C-alpha cells in the first residue's frame, strides 16, 4: 500500500488506506485493466468533458439548486441547505454516473451495456442514457426487488432495456450484482458493466466518485453565492454503496474543517438482525471485487441486509467510506426504517419536497446532532420520493 493516497484519491492499486484493490478473477482482468489504464485519459479528453458537461446541463438539468430549507432550519435551529439531486432527470443522482460511464463505454468501443439495480434508480438512469445513445441495455435485478419496485421495472422496459431477474442467492441487489458480473465474464469483448455505486474493483470506486463529484463541485460555488464561503461546517448524505455521499463529500474530503456525516440504514434497529448498517455490523472482507467492510457471518458468508429502502439494502460499502470510517475522517450515523418514514413526512410538510426513502435516512439523522446557529449544513437530497409512494401510502 503506497503512500500517495489522499482521502480523495486512492493509490495506484486502488487502495484507500486498507480498503479497495481489485480482487477479481482472471476472467475479468482484461476488461478491468483496460478500464484502469484508460479511464483517466478518456475522462480528461476535451471532447469527453464537453459532451459530459453539455449532457449534465441540457439533459439532466444541472446545476441542481442548492436550496436553503428555512422551515427545516428553524426546526433544528441551524442553517440547512438541500442539494437538490432529486431534480435531476430520472429523479436521483444516479444519472450523473450513468452518463459518464456510457460516454466512456462508447469511447472504449463497447456496444452493449449491463447494469445491476436494487431500487431501480440506477437501472432507470442507465436505461435512460442507453436510450438516448441508442445502445443495447440489460439490467439485472433481484426477483424480490422486481416485485417491490414495479414502477421502475416498467420505466426500464418502456425505455427499451431488458430487465433480467436475478434468481440466485437471496434474489436482491447483491445477487443482481453477481449476475451482472457473470454476464461480463461471459461477454468479455463487446460489453461494459456500469456499476451503480462507489463499489466494485478498482477503478470503479474512483471513477464513479469522480462522475458524482459534480455534486460537491457545484455545492462549493453555490454555497459561496449563498453565504460568502465555499465551505460548510457539515456535509450529510445517506450511504448505500456510497455514491451520492462520495459525490457530495468529494471536494471537501481533504478540507479537514468540514465534517462529513454519512447515514446508513439501521432497518429495524442496528442489532435487530434486520439492518443494513454496514460500518456498525460489518467486518473487513472482500465483496464484489474490493476489500471493504462487509456484513458477514463468522464463517465469511455474506449476510442479507434489511432496509425499507431498496437503495440502501446492500451488505457492503464503498472502500472510500470504509476508509473514512476507519480513519475517523467521516462520522457514521444510522436511521431505522421508522425514523426514515417519519423524516420523509416531515420534509414533505415543512418544505414541500417529497424525498426518496434513501434520502429520508439522512434527513432523520439531522435529529441526532446538536446543531448550533453558526453551523452551515449541506444535506444531499439524493432523490425524489415518487418511486416510494406505495410505501408512503401504507404509512399514512
Amino acid at each position, binding site marked *: 500500500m503506497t503512500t500517495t493516497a489522499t482521502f480523495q484519491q486512492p493509490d495506484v492499486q486502488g487502495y484507500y488506506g486498507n480498503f479497495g484493490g481489485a480482487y477479481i478473477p482472471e*476472467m475479468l482482468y482484461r476488461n478491468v485493466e483496460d478500464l484502469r489504464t484508460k479511464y483517466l485519459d478518456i475522462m480528461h479528453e476535451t471532447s469527453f468533458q464537453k459532451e459530459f458537461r453539455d449532457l449534465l446541463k441540457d439533459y439532466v438539468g444541472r446545476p441542481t439548486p442548492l436550496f436553503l430549507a428555512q422551515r427545516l432550519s428553524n426546526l433544528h435551529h441551524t442553517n440547512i441547505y438541500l442539494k437538490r439531486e432529486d431534480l435531476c432527470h430520472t429523479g436521483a443522482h444516479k444519472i450523473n454516473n450513468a452518463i459518464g460511464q456510457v460516454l466512456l463505454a462508447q469511447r472504449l468501443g463497447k456496444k452493449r451495456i449491463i447494469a445491476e439495480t436494487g431500487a431501480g434508480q440506477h437501472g432507470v438512469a442507465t436505461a435512460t442514457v442507453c436510450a438516448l445513445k441508442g445502445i443495447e441495455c440489460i439490467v439485472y435485478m433481484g426477483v424480490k426487488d422486481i416485485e417491490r419496485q414495479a414502477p421502475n421495472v416498467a420505466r426500464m422496459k418502456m425505455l427499451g432495456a431488458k430487465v433480467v431477474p436475478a434468481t440466485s442467492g437471496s434474489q436482491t441487489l447483491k445477487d443482481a450484482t453477481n449476475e451482472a458480473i457473470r454476464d461480463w465474464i461471459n461477454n468479455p469483448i463487446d460489453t461494459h458493466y456500469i456499476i451503480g455505486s462507489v463499489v466494485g474493483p478498482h477503478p470503479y470506486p474512483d471513477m464513479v466518485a469522480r462522475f458524482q463529484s459534480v455534486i460537491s463541485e457545484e455545492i462549493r460555488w453555490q454555497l459561496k453565492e449563498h453565504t460568502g464561503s465555499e465551505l460548510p461546517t457539515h456535509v450529510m448524505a445517506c450511504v448505500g454503496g456510497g455514491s451520492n455521499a462520495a459525490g457530495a463529500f468529494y471536494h471537501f474530503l481533504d478540507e479537514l474543517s468540514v465534517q462529513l456525516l454519512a447515514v446508513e440504514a439501521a432497518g429495524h434497529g442496528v442489532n435487530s438482525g434486520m439492518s443494513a448498517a454496514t460500518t456498525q455490523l460489518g467486518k473487513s472482507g*472482500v465483496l464484489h471485487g474490493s476489500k471493504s467492510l462487509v456484513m458477514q457471518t463468522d464463517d*465469511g458468508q455474506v449476510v442479507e441486509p434489511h432496509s425499507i429502502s431498496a437503495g440502501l439494502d446492500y451488505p457492503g460499502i464503498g472502500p472510500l467510506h470504509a476508509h473514512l470510517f476507519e480513519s475517523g475522517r467521516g462520522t457514521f450515523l444510522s436511521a431505522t426504517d421508522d425514523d426514515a418514514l417519519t423524516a420523509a413526512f416531515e420534509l414533505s410538510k415543512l418544505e414541500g419536497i417529497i424525498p426518496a426513502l434513501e434520502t429520508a435516512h439522512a434527513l432523520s439523522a439531522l435529529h441526532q446532532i446538536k446543531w448550533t446557529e453558526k453551523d452551515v449544513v449541506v444535506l444531499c437530497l439524493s432523490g425524489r420520493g415518487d418511486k416510494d409512494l406505495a410505501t408512503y401510502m401504507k404509512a399514512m
Partner: protein
Amino acid sequence: MSRLQTLFAQKNKGILNVYCTAGYPQLDSTIPVMHALQQSGADLIELGMPYSDPLADGPVIQASSLQAIDNGMTLVVLFQQLQHFRDTITVPVILMGYMNTALQYGFERFCADAAAAGIDGLILPDLPPYEFETEFGAIIKKYGLDFIFLVTPETAPERIQQLDALSTGFIYAVSSSSITGSDKDFSPVEAYLQRLQEMQLRNPILVGFGIKDKYTFDMACNYANGAIIGSAYIKAIAQTDTIEATTKAFIDGIRS
C-alpha cells in the same frame, strides 16, 4: 516432491481433476465423495469451500455451495472433517474457494490448517497477482502449499508468463471466458489451447470450465495435460443416494 509434482512426473496426459463442493449433497458427504472419486480413478480432487457469492462459478456450483452452507458447512467444520483424510486418500487434493472466507478464518491460520490436514494447494480465483506478491503469497509458501493461477483466452502472453512464474503445481486454463458449466461451443477454444501449448510453460496445464463429458475431456487432453470437471459432476450427484456407484458411472463415462 509435492504430491502434485509427483503426480505430473508420473503421468502427464489425460489427467482427470474432479471438483466437488465440501458438505454437498449432505454435510457428511465430503469424505465419501472424495473416496468415491479416488476409487473411480480421479487423479486429482478440487475440493470447493462453499461461499455465498462465488463470482467465478455458475449456477450449478453456486446452488451446491448454498446447499452446503445450509447443511452447516463452514471452514471450521471442513477442517474437522479433513483431520484424518490422509489415512485413506492418497491423490492430491486442492482447496478451491474465495478470499473472503479465508480472510475471515484468518489467512495464516487457514494456510496452516490446510497444510496440517494434508491439503496440497489452493485455487483462490479472486486473489490477484498483486496481492499475492505483496501479501499472501509468502504465507502460502511458508506452509508449503501450491498455488494455482487461472489464465483465459483474453490473458495476454506476457501475463500468462507472469502467472506461470507465480504458479506452482499447475496452471488452470479457463476454456473460454465463461463461468463454470456454461454451454458454449467448445471448438473455438482449440486455437487458444494450442497457443498455450506452444508457449511451453513451466507448469503443466489443466483445462477447466465447460468440460462436461468424454468428448470435451478428450478434446482438452489433446492440447493439455488434463482437464477439470465441476458442474457436470455436481449435477450427477445431486439426486443420488449411491455416491459410489454414481461417481463410478460418471467417471467411467469420461474415461471409456
